[in-house]
């Protein structure tokens, strides 16, 4: 009994359970929406979303091909969420990841299509662009004390309009289709090297982006938990004043964190667009990838490995929308489900408290004083 209780009190276990509850509730609400839209076909619709590419199960090659596509599309989502959770651990809400991702698109497509450079140069350019965008937010935060969320939002739009101007030019964009030229035909050497492509039904978009994503997640895990740098960042995130007291360089850490976070977001863009799977077209709103990354980061319990699982799940659902019968439903229903799941992630704390209920008596140390301390800490936070 005791053992069981302590298992459920473990914060990692609770996080996982809470995330699963969010996902299930989200799917349930999604089903209700389908029911409202078309009661007689709702079950079929939900089946299509969840069955997803497994409907090709008669042919393992096709199945693996579509599995591959899902993996490829999950890569930027996962990397964006890694960028966000990394900054979050240092106490920074990098809502600017969306813009950093956008300028990452700008850099990778401009270098590959207009300048005709090799893939690894394009990747470095994307990282640099994202990092620069992160740096600007960080600079404003550290030097002028502008809230990083506000600075990030501004930088998102500046990044978007800049990208529209640059990528809308004749060198990069096919003016007749209003899409950027396909890298495959203009500059194949800018394409990322393929990886296990044959295994996944000759999916040409299966590139080294996949293993690299896993490696990035592991590196972030190690940096956060094993290094003095991670120790500093997390200390700053938990308590900025204490970090200052301890002699940590807050200015440098804020900027460095957002530079790294931005670099990862920019990198995410290159890991997607340099597969050639998609072209950029002029957009009137900031690409949602960075925002979705926030969602994935929270759904993944703000854990680098959790983000991989959550990213795959979210991408799986989103792709599922395309398997809906458009006579009855439109594919955005899946987006709606994803948004609901993210919304529900806000309730994780509540779910966890629910799990802790009844067991609180065992926590003898949580006394009156520490409750008021918590409130005080919260008050100390910068707004």
């Amino acid at each position, binding site marked *: 009994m005791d053992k069981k209780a302590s298992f459920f009190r473990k914060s990692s276990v609770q996080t996982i359970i809470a995330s699963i509850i969010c996902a299930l509730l989200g799917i349930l609400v999604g089903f209700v*929406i389908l029911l409202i*839209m078309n009661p007689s076909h709702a079950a079929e619709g939900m089946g299509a979303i969840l069955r997803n590419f497994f409907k090709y199960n008669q042919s393992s090659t096709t199945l693996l091909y579509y599995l591959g596509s899902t993996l490829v599309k999950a890569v930027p989502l996962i990397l964006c969420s890694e960028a966000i959770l990394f900054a979050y651990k240092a106490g920074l*809400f990098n*809502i600017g990841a969306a813009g950093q991702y956008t300028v990452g698109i700008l850099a990778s497509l401009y270098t590959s299509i207009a300048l005709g450079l090799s893939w690894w140069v394009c990747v470095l350019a994307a990282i640099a662009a994202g990092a620069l965008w992160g740096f600007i937010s960080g600079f*404003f935060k550290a*030097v*002028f*004390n*502008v809230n990083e*969320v*506000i*600075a990030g*939002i*501004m*930088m*998102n*739009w*500046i990044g978007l*309009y*800049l990208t*529209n*101007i640059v990528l809308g030019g004749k060198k990069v964009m096919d003016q007749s289709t209003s899409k950027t030229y396909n890298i495959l035909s203009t500059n194949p050497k800018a394409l990322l090297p393929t990886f296990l492509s044959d295994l996944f039904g000759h999916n040409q978009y299966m590139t080294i982006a996949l293993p690299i994503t896993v490696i990035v997640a592991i590196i972030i895990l190690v940096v956060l938990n094993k290094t003095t740098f991670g120790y500093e960042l997390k200390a700053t995130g938990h308590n900025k004043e204490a970090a200052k007291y301890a002699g940590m360089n807050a200015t440098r850490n804020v900027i460095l964190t957002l530079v790294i976070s931005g670099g990862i977001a920019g990198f995410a863009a290159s890991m997607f667009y340099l597969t050639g799977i998609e072209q950029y077209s002029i957009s*009137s*709103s*900031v690409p*949602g990838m960075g*925002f*979705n990354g*926030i*969602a994935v980061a*929270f759904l993944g319990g703000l854990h680098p490995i959790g983000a991989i699982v959550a990213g795959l799940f979210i991408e799986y659902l989103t792709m599922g929308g395309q398997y809906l019968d*458009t*006579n009855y439903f*439109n594919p*955005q*229903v899946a*987006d*709606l489900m*994803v*948004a*609901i799941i*993210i*919304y529900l*992630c*806000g*309730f994780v*704390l*509540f779910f966890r408290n629910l799990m802790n209920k009844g067991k609180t008596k065992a926590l003898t140390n949580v006394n009156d004083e520490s*409750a*008021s301390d*918590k*409130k005080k800490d*919260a*008050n100390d*936070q910068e*707004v």
Partner: protein
Amino acid sequence: MILLIQYTLIFAAVLILVALGGMFSERSGIINLGLEGIMVFGAMAGAMVMVLLPADASKATIIILTMLAAAVAGVLSSLFIAVACINFKADQTLIGTALNMLATAAATVIVKAFNTARSDGTDFSAKLDYVTGHKAFLLHIGELEISWFIIIAAILLVCSIVFFYKTTFALRLRACGEHPQAADSVGINVYKMRYAGVLLSGFLGGLGGIIYIAAANSTWHFDYGVAGAGFLALAVMIFGQWKPERIAWSAVLFAVFRSLSNVNSGIDFLAKLHIPGTLYNMFPYIVSLIVLALTSKNSRAPKAEGIPYDKGAR
């Protein structure tokens, strides 16, 4: 030039309303990053009313019902924030972001379903046309073509200023954003006041949403959401230091830039500069970033904003 004034007035009206909405929410202690989403819901509801109203409906009917629908939709959608952030103490940045995503996805789904149903399965678009509705709001003063929306926004601005400084209710609301424990100790229900703040932001945000899409356009693609207007309003609010009269003039300032991106080719000396319209779009963001940097030392956000209030933890 007339066009520039018209556009400026429209954008200013939108920004004032939505930024005031943000202000009421933050003054009560809740950061509202979901203004964008609230606007989308308001815009959608208003547009649907305009589409559904019979062609021979009177101007007054159209105006009243459209505004009402937008406001109600805004209030309802702001409940997403209120419930999560006040009752469940959720992360306010996350919830705001989620609401924005939710709104765009929901609006797309709903409008598409709406169109599909109305067209017997021939129209799958996320677009609504409301030419009659749009025209109903127009009002001519000499050469200047303005919209009822602007007049309504001006009235609401005056009301907000009076309300903010002169009423019991607003005094209590502001206390909750500064020192909720103090408010609680004199018997003010902090949860209720925060609900009021968030719902007020829903009301104003919803109205801002319909003005944004209907004052200058007669058609709207809902898969675009409201293209960042909510975030711009947030910048206006901060620029305006969480005070209604300052918000008003910062909104006008921002609106001028925004309008320039739309009409710069129509103004001779600007057209000669050959600056792409997109660049004007960028201006307000760059300007606000710089201004924020210069003023952040004096900026005074409500002290308790962003911190969930817990009655037990005192």
